[in-house]
């Protein structure tokens, strides 16, 4: 459509179209709307986790067999479980462990993986080969099965489960970081740093690492939901936590055989769902925002 548009304002002899660009707000909303929703969900869950002791109506471990398996009511918004514990309170407290485990695994995994990847990209040759074959070895196994085996060997408990997950978590970051660092390595400003006689450690920390952080941040965000899901999965299988401790995966496991009492498994399941979706939306938004090609449109 390039028929001459209405021209009005502007200095004499200089035409400026009266119409503005197609509503900027609408474009931004279409592009980043889900990211804002995702961000809202994530922030809400973080707040819940922080404030759980103050906002939950009951103690999460308060057993009262007389009210076991009650459906949702005004007193117990999400009903009670087999021991008469309040599902809502347990859910709020469960957010603490799930989020903490997710953040710990992903952030430590990213730190370890990125270091290994960047060092591999810088050294090349034998060191690179050795590190990359090691990552291949770990990536060969389905992650949840390998984590399951390691966690089982280490013993039940949240710390051991996080440790087991870390073992399977770093390789994908190592792969991505190596690929990104290889690109940066051939950039002229890295060559310039070499010609200036800077030490490798400084080149890695000051020139290569900061320029690989964007895509890594996207993977971290997208991966948080994934890590929470995996942790819940391991707990569901009985590895994550020692029983009385509230945790979403183990809560779902408790409700697994209770077909009539749907609320015992459904609410923790929903909690996992929302948190994973929230992080995924955030990650997608972050990726769009960091990608200059998609941003210019």
């Amino acid at each position, binding site marked *: 459509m390039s028929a001459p548009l209405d021209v009005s304002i502007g200095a004499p002899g200089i*035409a400026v179209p009266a119409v503005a660009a197609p509503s900027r707000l609408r474009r931004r909303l279409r592009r980043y709307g889900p990211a804002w929703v995702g961000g809202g969900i994530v922030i809400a869950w973080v707040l819940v986790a922080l404030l759980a002791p103050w906002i939950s109506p009951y103690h999460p471990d308060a057993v009262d067999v007389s009210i076991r398996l009650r459906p949702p009511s005004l007193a117990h918004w999400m009903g009670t479980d087999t021991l008469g514990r309040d599902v809502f309170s347990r859910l709020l407290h469960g957010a603490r462990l799930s989020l903490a485990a997710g953040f710990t695994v992903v952030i430590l995994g990213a730190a370890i993986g990125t270091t290994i990847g960047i060092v591999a990209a810088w050294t090349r040759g034998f060191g690179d080969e050795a590190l990359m074959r090691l990552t291949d070895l770990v990536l060969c196994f389905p992650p949840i099965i390998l984590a399951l085996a390691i966690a089982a060997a280490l013993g039940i408990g949240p710390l051991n489960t996080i440790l087991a997950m870390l073992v399977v978590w770093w390789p994908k970051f190592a792969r991505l970081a190596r690929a990104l660092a290889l690109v940066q390595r051939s950039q002229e*400003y890295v060559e310039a740093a070499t010609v200036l006689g800077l030490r490798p450690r400084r080149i890695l920390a000051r020139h290569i690492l900061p320029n690989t952080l964007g895509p890594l941040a996207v993977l971290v965000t997208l991966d948080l939901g994934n890590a929470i899901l995996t942790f819940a999965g391991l707990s569901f299988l009985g590895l994550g936590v020692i029983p009385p401790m509230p945790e979403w995966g183990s809560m779902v496991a408790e409700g697994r055989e209770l077909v009539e009492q749907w609320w015992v498994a459904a609410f923790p399941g929903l909690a996992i769902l929302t948190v994973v979706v929230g992080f995924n939306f955030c990650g997608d938004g972050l990726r769009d925002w960091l990608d200059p090609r998609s941003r210019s449109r």
Partner: protein
Amino acid sequence: MDGSLTTPPTTTLDPPVLEVEDLRTVFLTDAGVVRAVDGVSFRVGAGETLGIVGESGSGKSVTALSLLRLLDEQARIVGGTIRFKGQDVLAMRPAELRAWRGDQAAMVFQDPMTGLNPVLRILRQVTEHIVSHGRMPPAEARQRGVGLLRRMGVAAPERAAASYPHQFSGGMRQRVMLAIGVANDPALLIADEPTTALDVTIQAQILDLLRGLNEEFGTAIVLVSHDLGVIASVCRRVVVMYAGEAVEEAATAEVLADPRHPYAWALVNAVPRLDAPIGARLTSIEGMPPDPLHLPQGCRFEPRCPFKIARCATEHPPMLEVAPGRRARCWVTADGRSLPRPAVPATPAAPAARDAAPPLLEARDLVKHFVLPRRSLFAPAEKVHAVNGVDIALGRGESLGVVGESGCGKSTLARLLTRLHEPTAGSVLFEGRDITHASPAALRPLRPRLQMVFQDPYASLNPRMTVGEILVEPILAHGRAASRQAARERVGELLTTVGLKPGFASRYPHEFSGGQRQRVSIARALALDPAAVVADEPVSALDVNVQAQVLNLMQDLQQRLGLSYLFIAHDLAVVRAFCDRVAVMYLGRIVEEGPAAEIFAAPLHPYTVALTSAIPEPGRQRVVLGGEPPSTLRLPEGCAFRARCPVARAACAEPPPLREVAPGRRAACHFPGDFAPHPTPVRSASLADHQRR
């Protein structure tokens, strides 16, 4: 370019092929309305050739796209008219537009690498338009397609027709693009920087082709380029654009000889020419084009203009007829006067006679091969033969130019000399010390004395560091400042040295223009007081005026700081303006070496002859070299240039050594000087030649 062809007797009766009146195109951006094209008018008669020249951001490409209404969504044509043979292009409906584009008006784009569809065979892409516009049935169109490819100089067109684009080089793809462009005998062909991505010898081939198309088929051509030389070799008339406006329109020869707008004047005089005195300073104007969101109220060139008068700041000049048939947008020349010639630069002091002192940086029989990853487990490993035995020596206080086309190994040579790469064989000596296989730790103390400036001003500065941080880093790393405060003061000095404000230290690279970034790059190289600077195409990514500024700066610095430069370039005129000595590379070897003045006056190697004559400069006798450089995967036997050499003989099956032919001049040819060009006409003669046309 013959008068009878460019002005057919019917022009007065027929409407012109293209008539543009007061064209205005804007971009709707988040920051506001950018007036990219702001009142451009011109006309192109049948069979005429018009050039549009300007620096990046001047609106020349947007003008070209506007002509065919190929603009993106956020760009709008908000005023003016475009008439094609009397038809209003702006009023065409989408269906009419589609039928017109590619049929009567066609366009060739800059990037031959992305202009073709990678999954379609070449012939299919050539015939597509012929068939879809209903010109011919498919079978006939295929015959015509092969014919067109042959006409465009595609080797073995029958075989090429069945190939895919990735099997073609850049030059060959541009020929295919041209074949597609003229497939339907359009009355108008618009070419947007068609040779910018190509090497000089290939560029000369493509420009010849464009001229031929115009002469043979009478196709009117609108050629958009940043290079006046390219325009002058094809176009009779030229429109000079600045900040979205046409500032001068006249016959190309007249603009070259006597520009009437100060910007055109700057453009003409900023280009290093092969016939200027050696070592002369280039004329450059300071400043940058105005911010398109806040254009000055008066003349848009006023802030940078060396000739401005009081009226220029307040009144915006219209296009005025300054002489018969030529118009300019300038108050100074409005009364028909010419602009003064640039002051003749003082001939620089003769370079200090080099004594027998040992060279600063020296390469002996240097070889670098890159091993490619195997295609399959059992495939033999292939090697890129980037550098194949180079001997070169850079003396103290000297500037040595290394020229060659892309892929000749000149950038690899730069990286071998600075030991970014480790040589496969041969040796590198710096200040008499062998650094061929020195470890990074052993090199570190030497690094400050041997620095490098890179080609791409956008990639050579870390985007996450401020300019201050970039410059402080090497100073602190080598303990060259007692304190952070002292280092910061040194940064201020460095920025002043390269003509930037000390206050710029707190800014990030993306806040600067290309020329300013290149100055920062130079400041970084100077931070450690180097003795030698290896510059890898430091000005090839810059507009001509900025290029002139940077070259002048580098020359000043050399005199003030006593630097030695190894200057890598593909542009011979730049090398000639800048260097004392020149080495010409072809396929990883030096084919000729000697003093700059002598090499350009009387080249000895046939490749040097072709290279110097391929430069699109008006009035130059050209030797258009056929073919393309051979693959570096398998080196040819004997003389590497044999296949393209116009004087190759049986003896050339024997590889020629690089030997001294005359005092101080070496050439790798069995018959040096046998292939002599006609003597380069002097400048005045070339102009007379133009006016005759």
